[in-house]
């Protein structure tokens, strides 16, 4: 049982980082991206390739994953500078679909449809950290550091400028804020962070495949942020806990027949999400719009 809980907790930490990075875009900058799953994958593939061909060092994997994600995030920042709202969503959707095609059709980089298997256990400065408890500790520390970084950034002038841009882009521009630069930095920071989450994911699962980073993954990350509470520090973590642990908890209910477990799980899960959105639209940890 302990091993199972440790495994779930590690996933919560990894997806907590990914959701927090998504929150940077949605919650603080008002950039609704549907391509976050792709950057999660880019980080995962970068770390996997590094581990399989060079070294399983986690710090180097973080560096490679974040650098590649940030570099490629310019592909997302470019449309973000020119369009806003639903037009940006459509542009990011296109990028997500493009990325998934590359994941599947570039076997030398991603293993193609077969994925990359046999990723070795992670090391950190020469110390083996692949055991479940150690990896949980590493993932949890990375999560805490990520949240701290976001908190520091959002309390400073950069964060206030992002929130001003989110609330009224024209007004922020009128006050002299460099909107294109702000958007580029926000996208780069969000994508860099989700790249790190992707690297952790690759080491944790030991196997990466393009199917894990589809549009569904992007939507799942969005759901974690919106359900938990966009624009709050704790919100993405609460959303992650709910989305990852609720289905796991349901499997322990003995009254659900084995053959119907999937159907019942989907039904309860969907109903819970709908009720949450009706009675607490700002998310579980979110504040009212007026107070935010």
């Amino acid at each position, binding site marked *: *049982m302990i091993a199972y809980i440790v495994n779930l907790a590690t*996933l919560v930490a990894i997806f907590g980082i990914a959701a927090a990075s998504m929150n940077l875009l949605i919650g603080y900058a008002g950039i609704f991206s549907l391509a976050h799953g792709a950057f999660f994958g880019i980080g995962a593939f970068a770390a996997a390739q590094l581990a399989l061909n060079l070294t399983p060092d986690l710090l180097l994997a973080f560096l490679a994953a974040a650098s590649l994600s940030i570099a490629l995030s310019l592909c997302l920042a470019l449309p973000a500078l020119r369009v806003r709202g639903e037009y940006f969503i459509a542009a990011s959707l296109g990028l997500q679909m493009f990325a998934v095609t590359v994941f599947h*059709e570039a076997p030398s980089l991603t293993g193609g*449809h*077969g994925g990359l298997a046999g990723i070795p256990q992670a090391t950190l400065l020469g110390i083996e950290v692949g055991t479940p408890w150690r990896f949980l500790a590493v993932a949890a520390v990375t999560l805490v550091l990520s949240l701290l970084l976001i908190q520091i950034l959002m309390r400073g002038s950069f964060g206030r400028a992002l929130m001003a841009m989110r609330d009224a882009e024209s007004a922020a521009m009128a006050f002299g804020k460099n909107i294109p630069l702000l958007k580029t930095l926000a996208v780069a920071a969000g994508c860099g962070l989700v790249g790190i989450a992707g690297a952790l994911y690759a080491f944790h699962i*030991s196997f*990466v495949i393009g199917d894990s980073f589809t549009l569904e993954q992007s939507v799942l990350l969005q759901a974690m942020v919106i359900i938990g509470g966009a624009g709050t520090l704790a919100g993405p973590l609460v959303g992650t806990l709910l989305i990852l642990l609720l289905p*796991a908890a349901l499997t322990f209910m003995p009254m659900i027949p084995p053959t119907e477990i999937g159907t019942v799980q*989907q039904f309860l899960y969907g109903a819970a999400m709908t009720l949450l959105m009706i009675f607490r639209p700002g998310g579980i940890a979110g504040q009212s719009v007026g107070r935010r």
Partner: protein
Amino acid sequence: MILRRQFLVGAAATVAAPSVLRAQGAAYVLGTLFPMSGANAEFGTMYLNGVQLALDHIAADKMLKNGIDLRPIDSQGTAQGGAVGMTRLANVDRASYVLIGFTGVSKAAAPIGDRAKVVMVNGGGVGPDLATLSPYFWNILPLANQEVRAVLPFIKEKGFKRIAMIYTEDPSGMAVHAELKSGLPGVGGELVGAYGVAPTLTQFAAIAAQVRDVRPDAVFFASVSGVQAVQIVKQLRDNGISQQIMTYSTGNLPSVSALPESEGLVFTGQSADWAATEPTMKRFVTGWREKLKSEPTTYGLNYYNATLLFAQLAKGLEAAGKPVSGETLREEMLRVRTFQLAGGEVTFAENGTASTGVQLNQVRGGRIYKIA
């Protein structure tokens, strides 16, 4: 007054009691890691139906001293679902034997099962890379590369010299390509054109034109997708290719065999004769039809057999007075190697891959006939 020796004996008995009781009567935990929700839930249900039918038969026959406790976990058909589900089955449910489906799920779950020494049995995925995942990962169906060898004698018999091939660029498609490329010279043939396509592609007019240009005697296609297979056959015929078309087990799908353009299609497939008189197969077919009111499928058969295999292994261990665990199940499999399952004898190789029979079929008038 209790003497110290009596106290120690009592304490030892108290500590040992649960494990003794467990050894005497606790049910064996059998896990399943199938997609039970989402787009692939249909497959998961089909797999589970095979497992449950086998459990009914095992219980009716009183094959084991202890019962079997089924723990189905929804893998959602994803790698992450596979990793989480396998961790739970290995560490919470303490399953010693897990039935698994889907290549991505299998690859993510295999390292976890390997570490926990849990036997995992695949009855759905055909990618050849599944043969080398772990000593504890077994395949109870012929993998794509094994299956395609059965078509070579047919090519020789018909005197086909020039073969063109369309294959999906995934592990199974690429393995079939490699197998055919290396096998054709041995039967006097050659691969005159090979066209790799994405598993999601549905437009084949341009490829059909290229195939026509190389003037093949026959065309072989390898795709696990029924939707894609239908499009390949239809568009090859629509674009004027009248030569023999061949494929592997995808031809078994009703959507493919029922297609008018599939007339004459030759395909390999796992041996599965629903009209067989062999008692275990007859019982499976009858049981499936009675319980599920539908025709049996090879997927259902594979998981039925995988469950029967567990019962036979556990029975052997019970007879030898050994505990049932992943390690002992593997030892027993390596000791016995050949098992009598539905459809006949199945022999496992050292790596846990079964060599089941493969047959050659042909579509005639929308029906499937065994030709070799």
